[in-house]
């Protein structure tokens, strides 16, 4: 039973990791909390759903979710971030909030506020391995996450663009002196984070076999906690924090009741903010943000 | 007045401050007597700004003591030190952007007034507060910009407003961080005259400045810092002739 919860938690954690990485990309490089990511996550899920219900293959659904979310993220970067990039970081954050409000309204109007269920054939087969059973959907979630994280790692650590991203994260002014075009890179950061969030949306839809317009607020916001716990200045902290929080959450629901889970997760986040702002993986001092 | 007659107002004794591995201040000792204008000079990065921050409580000294008129202020929080009578200005002018000049002078006088009084409209502040603000306004010649928002003022006027704000609460010691940076000769002269007037009115001044001519003309005593260490001190003409000082400046420039 415990092991089963572990597996379930891992699956949820994988989705958290993706969304947290999405938040951390923009936060780490620009210092901005892009609140629209929660809704890009949701929209990605709906786009993926639409593709699935058209009987198109699953990989296409994931790509559709990623592409759609990435496109919207680019729009947000151009309208909501670029003009405000020299203002205190809370201002662009509020701008992304505006976008998230718009996105949720759009989703509710297009797809309705009731949950959309996946067609039955997508519940997938369950495989039994010893004491645990895992569904093919869960395997897809875990597999896709691994692929996406590996791809992101490759881009960030191995490519020159990734190096440039990291340079900008360290110091915008120095990066500019080195000839790095900051505005192209911020666009890239937004697009990458949108793509990750969109993928996560499709995956969570597969995991729960359903999607609602409120999934952004329910799950997406908690990914902020995951990012903080993993360490806002260390994006790879999300790899550890994601599964950790996913498992904690699933355990809490199993043994404490579903109502306490938010309390526990956000409580953990606040504790980290106050006691260990650099996150569980350590690193440079976080928690010193800009004034409003 | 000879040094022996003067009572010590500010005393730093073997103050040390390190950041990571960097010794911003090493064993710095100095003395500012009442009614003196003392200058701190030295190349960039010598530790002058750190010293101001340590005196005002923004940083805590790792070793050594700081005392004001005999009272230890080494570990006190900034607002306590400010209320004990130390004020400062900043090299890059830190005013309250959206407030008017008048409001700056009012808000700089929170001491000794009860909460109830401070909850009343500004115009109902005690006559003492209003009178003091008016006094300072006139002293610095800022009547014309009384109701102008700080952000909208020209640079030279902003510097004056910052000094005015620092002086309003009747401090014993005023720390000025490069008060004439970026000013032309006339503006600097203006500031110099104001500083002398303040000194004559009983205020002691500690000054960081790069403009050597300005410093020579004004200070009673100088300390020279380099790499966090006091390498020379004395009357201005003594210090100017000191080969160590020339070395420090020229060495940095090359």
């Amino acid at each position, binding site marked *: 039973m415990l092991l089963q919860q572990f597996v379930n938690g891992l699956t949820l954690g994988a989705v958290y990791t993706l969304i947290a990485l999405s938040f951390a990309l923009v936060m780490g490089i620009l210092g901005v909390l892009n609140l629209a990511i929660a809704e890009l996550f949701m929209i990605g899920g709906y786009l993926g759903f639409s593709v699935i219900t058209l009987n198109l293959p699953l990989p296409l659904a994931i790509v559709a979710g990623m592409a759609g979310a990435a496109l919207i993220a680019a729009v947000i970067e151009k309208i909501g971030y670029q003009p405000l990039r020299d203002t205190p970081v809370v201002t662009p954050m509020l701008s992304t909030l505006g976008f998230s409000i718009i996105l949720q309204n759009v989703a509710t109007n297009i797809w309705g506020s009731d949950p959309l269920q996946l067609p039955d054939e997508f519940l997938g087969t369950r495989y039994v391995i010893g004491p645990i059973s895992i569904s093919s959907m869960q395997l897809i979630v875990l597999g896709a996450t691994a692929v996406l994280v590996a791809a992101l790692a490759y881009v960030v650590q191995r490519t020159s663009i990734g190096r440039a991203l990291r340079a900008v994260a360290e110091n915008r002014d120095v990066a500019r002196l080195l000839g790095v075009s900051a505005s192209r890179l911020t666009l890239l950061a937004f697009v990458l984070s949108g793509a990750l969030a969109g993928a996560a949306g499709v995956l969570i839809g597969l995991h729960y076999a359903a999607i609602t317009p409120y999934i952004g607020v329910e799950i997406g916001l908690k990914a902020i906690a995951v990012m903080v716990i993993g360490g806002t200045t260390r994006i790879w902290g999300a790899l550890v924090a994601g599964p950790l929080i996913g498992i904690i959450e699933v355990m809490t629901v199993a043994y404490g009741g579903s109502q306490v889970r938010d309390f526990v997760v956000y409580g953990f986040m606040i504790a980290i*903010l*106050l006691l260990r702002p650099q996150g569980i993986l350590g690193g440079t001092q976080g928690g010193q943000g800009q004034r409003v | 007045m000879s040094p022996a007659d003067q009572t010590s107002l500010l005393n730093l004794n073997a103050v040390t401050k390190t950041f990571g591995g960097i010794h911003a201040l090493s064993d710095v000792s100095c003395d500012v007597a009442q009614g003196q204008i003392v200058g701190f000079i030295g190349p960039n990065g010598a530790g002058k700004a750190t010293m101001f921050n340590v005196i005002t409580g923004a940083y805590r000294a790792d070793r050594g003591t700081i005392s004001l008129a005999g009272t230890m202020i080494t570990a006190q929080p900034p607002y306590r030190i400010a209320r004990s009578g130390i004020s400062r200005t900043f090299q890059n002018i830190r005013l309250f952007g959206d*407030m008017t000049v008048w409001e700056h002078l009012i808000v700089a006088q929170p001491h000794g007034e009860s909460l109830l009084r401070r909850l009343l*409209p500004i115009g109902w502040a005690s006559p003492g507060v209003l009178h003091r603000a008016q006094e300072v306004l006139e002293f610095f010649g800022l009547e014309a910009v009384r109701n102008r928002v700080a952000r909208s003022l020209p640079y030279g006027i902003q510097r004056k407003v910052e000094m005015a704000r620092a002086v309003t*609460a009747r401090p014993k010691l005023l720390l000025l961080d490069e008060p004439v940076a970026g000013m032309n000769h006339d503006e600097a002269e203006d500031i110099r005259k104001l500083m002398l007037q303040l000194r004559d009115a009983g205020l002691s001044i500690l000054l960081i400045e790069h403009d050597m001519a300005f410093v020579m003309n004004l200070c009673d005593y100088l300390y020279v810092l380099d790499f966090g260490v006091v390498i020379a001190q004395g009357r201005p003409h003594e210090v100017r002739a000191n080969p160590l000082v020339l070395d420090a400046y020229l060495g940095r420039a090359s």
Partner: protein
Amino acid sequence: MSTYYAGLFADAGILLLGALSVYIILATGQLSLGNAGLMGIGAYVTSYLTVNVGVPITAALTIAGIACGAIGVVVGFPALHLKGIYLAMATLGFGEMVRSFFLNFSPMGGAGGFHGMKHISVGYIWAWAGGLLIVVMLLERSRVWLEMQAVRDDETAAGLVGLKTTTTKVAAFGAGAAIAAISGGLFAHQFVYIEPGNFGFERSIDFVLAVILGGSTVAPGALAGAMLLVLLPEMLRFLADWRLAAFGGLLIVVLLVRRQGILDRSLFRLVTFRSSPT
């Protein structure tokens, strides 16, 4: 006034108080995204007092306000360690924790909600809303407000001028919490049924929206924002399904074009025919 419009104005009054709670904390440079949580605490405390203990509504609101003010002060202390976005995230988390707490708190109904409150009139709501608005407007003309502004504009310089920045920031949280609590208590007695879902992130965002849109530098801005958020959807009926998107878009436009919001000091003076200060 028809019950429909009475309901709208009641909503506006409640939202005004919520917006004021964000405004007063924002005046010290702290953005709080969790005031709905404080509103929720106020709602539940007030309801408990009137329904289970039989305290009259005005006394109950006062007690809830003071209690929540104390909670706000307690929250304000750890908040001192956080700035900007980190503070925003922490307050967001706090709001969610409060909502989650009430989901589990069966003595007050848990997820099933709480009811039994007696309905109050629009006039009563606006007695509180209008009264507190006037109090804040009076506060804005005081030296304490200058101190808050100083802390917001440059906390370090404020400390060096002798201001107790800690006291100012924590007190602002306390005051904001008290006002949010009253908003909650009034909400509870307007809708005579409350559940934890009423006090989630979306509600906190409504408060912030009202302040940012209506005017984040003057207290009447909260009033403008509250009226805007409640009345605009009525005036633009065709917008009905898209009103949230419209507000989201308005938020973006305001941040791009007029960051201080609709009302600011000079416009307010113009609108109230007052001349500039001499």
